[in-house]
């Protein structure tokens, strides 16, 4: 597999201007080539020529599924209609991903310019940015950028004397993860409940207000201008066979250098975590990295040297998603992590289709049962079967990928599930019903500090005599451990004695 890694590993294309310029001052953007690509396209290229450049470049959607961008534009350009729309999906929803916010806050003109190029290519004169209301700063900077670009004639009527018109408006999300899905996003922009509908029809033929609509995400748009200016061959020389260019990842979790990075496709997890990310926090043992958000899965040690691209991640049971990477260490319980994601999905499911509405709720309940130490082996079977059926039958991308965290943890961390179910043990010491606090009689001096702070009076003992914690009463709040000055209280992972 061909790879082109720059000396330090990172190569910034989408993030080229982030941290380089003042996003609230268009002059700084212009000084760094903003709108040059738009000018070139309008003056020198036909829409189809421009689409061909994108097709040659091999750019694929950075929002998750990785659909070839040039092809997407071409389909929209071929739809016949009096009105078409360009939509920028800035409803960055994957928890742990923040590249879209960073691009919009740091380099809004890269997105505006690319939307205008897209408008020219598909024959649209209106653009809409669907942005999360939770991003007030990004909204503010986008508004400033749009105003400044309008004032300079880089958006609006007769752009750069070409006769091409393009205007951009903002639509706000309102806290619904499912609106990251194209059809749901479109319904939301139309003032409706953000429920997805069956595809086809695809937005490219019938989207916003039933008109052909091209939806791309922020990072995808941020890649457009450099491809136009530097050429498709330059872009396709970066990355792997089927995944060209770079990908922005948001490194978070138990990693030293939390931050935003951009690396060529094909970079390995090891390089990302240990070289760029500076290794695991407090030198703990690496356990897993979660990619692709709630739709993705966990990659483990055995995947550390896999070159990251769309296909390899899917093969490994995860997906590219928007590029969140959350690093987990030995203190993270993988059953609980799966439960965390299911909790998220249950809260964010739109409720339209049965498998997602009821199925995910049932998955969550089984996981909860397991983390409470009430699981039986049959539950693991049930988890797996139900997960496959949800994947097979759910209506939209959110539902079809929602069991991925369960399946990938089941696949990679089966022994942890087994321990929870059979040995009633949580090796990470995370599941409250599966560990208990004990007082070391030799270290305890009977100061009663723990007894006084216990909110449920689970601790008994006479003064200056070793104390005792009743596990059946204890709620595992951990107050006593903090209060004990003699390190006499510790966590015991062995199953508690059931009374």
């Amino acid at each position, binding site marked *: 597999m061909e790879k082109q890694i720059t000396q330090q590993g990172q190569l910034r294309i989408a993030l080229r201007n982030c941290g380089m310029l003042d996003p609230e001052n268009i002059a700084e953007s212009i000084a760094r080539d903003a709108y040059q690509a738009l000018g070139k396209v309008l003056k020198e290229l036909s829409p189809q020529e421009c689409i061909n450049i994108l097709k040659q470049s091999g750019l694929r959607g950075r929002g998750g599924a990785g659909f070839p961008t040039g092809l997407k534009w071409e389909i929209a350009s071929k739809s016949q209609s009096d009105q078409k729309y360009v939509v920028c999906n800035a409803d*960055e*929803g*994957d*928890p*742990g*991903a*923040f590249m*879209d*916010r*960073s691009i919009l806050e740091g380099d809004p003109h890269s997105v505006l310019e690319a939307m205008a190029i897209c408008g020219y290519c598909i024959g649209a004169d209106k653009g809409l940015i669907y942005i999360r*209301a*939770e*991003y*007030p*700063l990004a909204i*503010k900077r986008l508004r400033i950028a749009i105003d400044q670009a309008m004032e300079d004639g880089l958006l609006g009527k007769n752009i750069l004397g070409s006769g091409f018109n393009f205007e951009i408006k903002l*639509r*706000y*999300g*309102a*806290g*619904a*993860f499912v609106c990251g899905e194209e059809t749901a996003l479109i319904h*939301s*922009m*139309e*003032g*409706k*409940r*953000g429920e997805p509908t069956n595809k086809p029809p695809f937005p490219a033929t019938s989207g916003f*207000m039933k008109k052909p609509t091209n939806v791309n995400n922020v990072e995808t748009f941020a890649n457009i201008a450099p491809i136009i200016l530097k050429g498709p061959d330059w872009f396709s020389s970066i990355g792997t066979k089927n995944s060209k260019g770079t990908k922005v990842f*948001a490194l*978070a*979790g*138990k990693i030293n250098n*939390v*931050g*935003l990075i951009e690396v060529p496709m094909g970079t390995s997890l090891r390089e990302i975590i240990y070289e760029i990310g500076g290794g695991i926090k407090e030198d703990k043992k690496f356990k897993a990295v*979660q990619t692709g*958000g709630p739709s993705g899965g966990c990659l483990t040690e055995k995947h550390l040297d896999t070159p990251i691209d769309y296909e390899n991640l899917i093969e490994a049971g995860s997906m590219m998603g928007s590029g*969140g990477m*959350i690093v*987990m260490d030995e203190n*993270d319980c993988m059953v609980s*992590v799966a439960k*965390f*994601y299911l909790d*998220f999905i249950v809260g*964010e499911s*739109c409720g339209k289709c049965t498998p997602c509405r009821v199925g995910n709720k049932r998955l969550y309940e089984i996981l909860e049962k397991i983390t409470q130490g009430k699981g039986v082996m049959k539950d693991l079977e049930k988890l797996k079967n139900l997960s496959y059926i949800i994947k097979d039958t759910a209506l939209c991308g959110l539902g079809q990928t929602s069991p991925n965290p369960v399946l990938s943890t089941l696949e990679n961390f089966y022994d942890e599930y087994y321990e929870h179910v059979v040995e009633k043990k949580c090796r990470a010491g995370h599941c409250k019903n599966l560990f208990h606090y004990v007082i070391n009689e030799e270290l305890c001096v009977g100061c009663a500090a723990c007894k006084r702070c216990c909110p449920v009076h689970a601790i008994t003992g006479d003064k200056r005599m070793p104390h005792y914690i009743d596990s059946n009463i204890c709620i595992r709040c951990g107050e006593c451990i903090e209060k004990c000055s003699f390190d006499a209280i510790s966590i015991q992972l062995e199953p508690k004695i059931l009374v």
Partner: protein
Amino acid sequence: MVPKLMCDDDMVDIYSVPSGDKDSLKVTIKLSKEKIETINRICASFENNPEELINVLHETQNTLGYLPAEVQEIIAHNLKISSAHVYGVVTFYSYFTMVPKGDYPISVCMGTACYVRGAEKILEELKKELKIGIGETTPDQRFSISCLRCVGACGLAPVLMVGEKVYGSVSPDDVKKILNEYREDNEDCKCQQL
């Protein structure tokens, strides 16, 4: 869900929504005239376009603080859509609230990065400190707690927001300190606009 009425002094009188055209639905609503006019103005600024419902709801919630049933009725009337539709939309999106939030709404990020860095503990501490649960407001109307999915400040995990101000790398011990900033009537500490 029990939609609440506006506070007492708002209920100046019962006014009817002025019927601009013939197919207007007359709705009698317990809201002050000023508030009705504010809502009408917001709707008009979006040309009473039903497509803009979500933007209208945002703007109205920003102005009034929350979206009680009466307010939704007026919006439905102006945009010529059913109030069931408006309510369906309001309850779909977690950003919209039908109960007033506190003067200092606190949102705890429950994104994955924050989760693995102990957001649950922060939330527990907040609940303990304020003696209220998620989605609730303190009796003095000062604080309310809600959970947010990722705010995209994962580098600072765990994160909480008071209004629009983001606090990063919060430890359970910090919770009290942060709350104290707002407990005293310290004008300087009011939510900074980004």
